[in-house]
């Protein structure tokens, strides 16, 4: 089974074959509050590990979305652009952001597993 991994920027990533699905964590949505605007990368574009690959905005502020691995954008989730509140409702499942055809699987190695991320998220809550 594919394991879900997590980044320090509060993204989750699920790898199936060489396609990774990426979204933001429930913890991230709780910190952001109500999300009212989403911008996603363009299909066919290339994104670099730790680079920006989108934007989410709450009523309060805009935040960049980073990609935890490099790759080519093969799909984006139009549903969360049309109705950004879906991200607050189901962030780690149906409200995924984009899918990447990844270049280098070893980029996954430095990411956290669920237990480590939960611990990290708890510590970074201010």
């Amino acid at each position, binding site marked *: 089974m594919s394991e879900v991994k997590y980044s320090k920027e509060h993204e989750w990533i699920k790898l199936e074959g060489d396609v990774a699905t990426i979204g933001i964590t429930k913890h991230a949505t709780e910190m952001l*509050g*109500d999300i*009212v*605007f989403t*911008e996603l990368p363009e299909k066919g574009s290339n994104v670099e590990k730790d680079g920006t690959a989108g*934007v989410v*905005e*709450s*009523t*309060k*502020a*805009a935040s960049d979305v980073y990609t935890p691995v490099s790759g080519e954008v093969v799909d984006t989730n139009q549903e969360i*652009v049309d109705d*950004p*509140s879906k991200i*607050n409702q189901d962030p780690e499942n149906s409200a995924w952001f984009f899918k990447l055809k990844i270049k280098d699987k070893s980029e996954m190695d430095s990411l956290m597993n669920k237990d480590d991320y939960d611990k990290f998220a708890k510590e970074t809550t201010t």
Partner: protein
Amino acid sequence: MNIKKTPLYQLHQENRAKFVEFAGYQMPIQYSKGIVEEHKFTRSHSGIFDVSHMGQLFIYGGEDLIKDLEKIFPLNLKNLKLNHSKYSFLMDKDAGIHDDLIITKTNEGFLIILNAACKDDDFKILKELLEEKYKMVLDENRSLIAIQGPKSPQILNDVIDGVKDLNFMSGNWFLFQDHKVYITRSGYTGEDGFEISIPNDFVDKLTRELINKGSKLIGLGARDTLRLEAGLCLYGHDLDKDKTPVEANLKWAISKERISKGDFIGSDIIIKQLNNGVSKIRVGIKPEGRIIAREKTKIFNQLDVHIGEITSGTFGPSVNGPVAMGYVENEFSKKDTKVFLEVRGKKHAASICNLPFYKKSYVKGAN
């Protein structure tokens, strides 16, 4: 500097508030339900706002005080009825706005509600302008809460009988369990509602009773989206020392009679601007699509010339889309003028629009 807490701090905590520091106070930005829910609840039911960080300045005096205050504020205070309120501003000689405020005539003088970040400066400025002739109290022993939204008149009336009979922008003293409270029918959300000045020791009790009757605590986050939808200015953003009331499109708040006499601080500039026009003016701006243009976003015309800047911008939950206001060069201020907003390096289409974005359709005095 020590961060101050309002007397409702514990109640905010019990309601799982997220706090932010605002003007030296620990204030609730939102509670567990979030800004969008809080905003909509206020518009459909009733919301309670802790605005105890704002200044409550009592100035005591009679006829002389009225004359002296008319040298400062562009209002006809002589004709202002007892317990009636007016929106106004404290200006400098160049008509730059040092604060915007609500002034109410009381039986002992005036009550002025000031912005939290400005209140200490305002106090000093007014004390100097009034040459210490009058007793002035920036009352730290009283809290201020607002209750806003269509269900608020009934809810508040159930706790304090008689408030329902107040007219908009007027107030009076009432009793809450033998404690004197001053209540005005006013607010800053575009909804019907009240502001209640109450001794610190009893504000927690009153607020809990209002919650029991069906009102809910609402944070500063929703207060901001509510006031922006209502087209109301936020000091330090839409108003500051570099802007005049005429530029801010607030000339409705200046007494016509006072302009003809022109004997208040800043009147020279105000009269000049009213006669000759202004180079920049505050307008409503509606972005196309969902893009949110926040404060400091640059505004361009169709020829890609920089013509202004956004001063407030967010997502309006009742409008269900982005809303903004800002200042543009006067010739681009006409309704429906096409403009472009630069957000994250890209230009997005928008148009100049009338304010407010959201207008309540209630009958004055109806419940």
